[in-house]
């Protein structure tokens, strides 16, 4: 089966700033593919090239076998795009927005209603409300409905869950999972590490470079160091002290715990406890923990 999205050696720079540096990846039809990376890592630039809004510096990108530069007109017929910023008409109502976006793709909301039904039915009670007056979660649902109304083959979502509450975020990912089942290829970017596990595969992106592409589980399996979670009464000193400790490899703060990897194999956390006691820490808690995507990301970023 030919890939739905195929990107080869893609470069893009703005002046002296390199935004994308030798990006190569493939996305299979019906795959839910995630891009994870901090702000400014190049996610949006990549998506803007894939949605034919930006011309690549060099390299090639194909959607459904069509080149994003040469065949941009054809691609626009079957592409669904949801930009990071809410970009529907705020002074049109929910229903008018849906009709308008169906209209510019020469279709009607009725024709593809089945596809958006599940999402749209949640905001249908507010269909006469102006889009600008909707809450963040509802805006995202409307934006997704509008991006889907012409039945796209490929859906590209740029940080769809940024600024959305936790419940709406979960609902949103459940919707994406259902769309995937219909066979729509989905590319989604997010700065939230915890959302990575919902993707079939994730690409970690940093400074315009792809660090790794793998299934979320495998990314975690690739983390071969034992990981220790450490907590004491003085978090600030804990970090600086641990970093001074010559036996530690990496120290990162995760919530109330510092996640630590050590040089060499440690069987128990005792050496850490002893070291911290010598530095005057109290209520010391050291235990082994399972790595998360974020740990892997930090590890890869080094």
């Amino acid at each position, binding site marked *: 089966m030919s890939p739905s999205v195929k990107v080869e050696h893609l470069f893009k720079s703005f002046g002296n700033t390199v935004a994308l540096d030798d990006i190569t990846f493939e996305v299979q039809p019906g795959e839910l593919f995630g891009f994870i990376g901090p702000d400014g890592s190049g996610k949006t630039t990549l998506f803007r090239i894939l949605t034919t*809004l930006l011309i690549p510096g060099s390299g090639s990108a194909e959607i459904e076998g069509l080149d994003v530069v040469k065949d941009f007109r054809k691609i626009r017929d079957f592409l669904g795009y949801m930009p990071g910023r809410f970009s529907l008409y705020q002074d049109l109502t929910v229903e008018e927005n849906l009709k308008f976006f169906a209209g*510019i793709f020469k279709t009607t909301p009725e024709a593809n209603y089945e596809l958006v039904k599940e999402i749209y039915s949640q905001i249908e009670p507010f269909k006469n409300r102006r889009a600008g007056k909707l809450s963040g979660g509802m805006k995202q649902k409307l934006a997704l409905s509008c991006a889907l109304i012409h039945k796209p083959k490929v859906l590209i979502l740029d940080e769809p869950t940024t600024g959305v509450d936790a419940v709406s975020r979960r609902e949103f990912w459940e919707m994406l999972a259902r769309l995937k089942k219909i066979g729509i290829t989905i590319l989604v970017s997010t700065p939230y590490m915890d959302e990575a596990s919902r993707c079939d595969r994730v690409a970690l992106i940093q400074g315009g470079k792809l660090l790794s592409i793998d299934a979320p589980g495998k990314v975690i399996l690739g983390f071969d160091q034992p990981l220790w979670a450490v907590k004491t009464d003085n978090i600030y000193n804990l970090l600086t002290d641990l970093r001074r400790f010559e036996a530690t490899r990496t120290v990162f703060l995760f919530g109330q715990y510092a996640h630590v990897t050590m040089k060499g194999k440690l069987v128990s956390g005792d050496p850490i406890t002893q070291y911290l006691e010598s530095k005057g820490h109290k209520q010391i808690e050291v235990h082994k923990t399972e790595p998360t995507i974020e740990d892997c990301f930090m590890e890869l970023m080094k």
Partner: protein
Amino acid sequence: MLPVIFVMPVLQLLVLAFAVTFEIRNINLVVVDQDHTMMSRALISKFKAPTFYTIKGYSQTYDLAAEQLKVGKAHQVLVIPEGFEKDLVKDTKSKVQLVTNAIDGSAAAIMNAYGMNIIMDYNQDLVVETMGGEEFSQPFKISYSYWFNPQLNYTTYMVPGILALLVTIIGLFLSSMNVVREKEIGTIEQINVSPIKKYQFVAGKLLPFWFIALFELAFGLTLAHIIFDIPMIGSLWLVFGVASVYLFATLGIGLFISTLVNTQQQAMFLAWFFAVVFIMMSGLFTPVESMPGWAQQLNLINPIAYFIRMLRMILLKGSQFSDISRPFFSVVIYAVIALTLAVWRYRKVS
């Protein structure tokens, strides 16, 4: 926003048509009469007659009168020197002095002309009176007749120009704000990834304003007819025909500006720049004929100048299409160029 679009032009038409006038109605005159004779009083009473002169006061010395001029209480000072009557009788000639505040140059010129006229008139009377009989009056008399506006009615001349201005503001400003607004709020992204064609997008941006502006023109013409009784001698169809083509030109410029810039502020800046230059040079406030040659040449690229000229010609003079074909086709060319530029410059890919 909708009421503003309609209320603003109405207010502008009502205010501007009355307020923007070159007629000077209240000239404050201070008289320095150092002669105090029958003849000097006769001259002063000549100034009392017209309604637009108000004698603010009499002063004994020129210095005191000049003070009034300085503080802005007087516009003009009339000085009748001592021996005015004596010189007139003895030498059959004498002098008076008329001092005018020329802070506002064009107003000063008009006030001066008024004053000179009155003095000339007095002179005429004097000649007839002292020399006796009509035979000494001038051998021929000049009388004027103003065509197409016999009373030199100011509103008749101004209102078509103001209407042109209103239509232009809608055409130029609303359209120049429009595409760039979509850039600012980000909706253009979603439009750009759709299969919609460039010309379709530009047409969609253009037509609403085209209709609004034409409606506005109809509205303004109705008001002009009812309130100002502006003559509408030519065909109204021709007026709207000219206006609809002219609107394509201004909307084209507006949209072109909008595609060039990145923020509404920049669009505003550019639109104002063009609007001010075009309006000032259009002949609305000052006659084009009084501009230097190069400035008149510059009006070849001024759509507002063409439009005002055509509106005045059709409404006041009843010009036919054949009479206005030259400016008309100039505007057509303008419209084609502006719209082509707008469509060409609007990029769906950055």
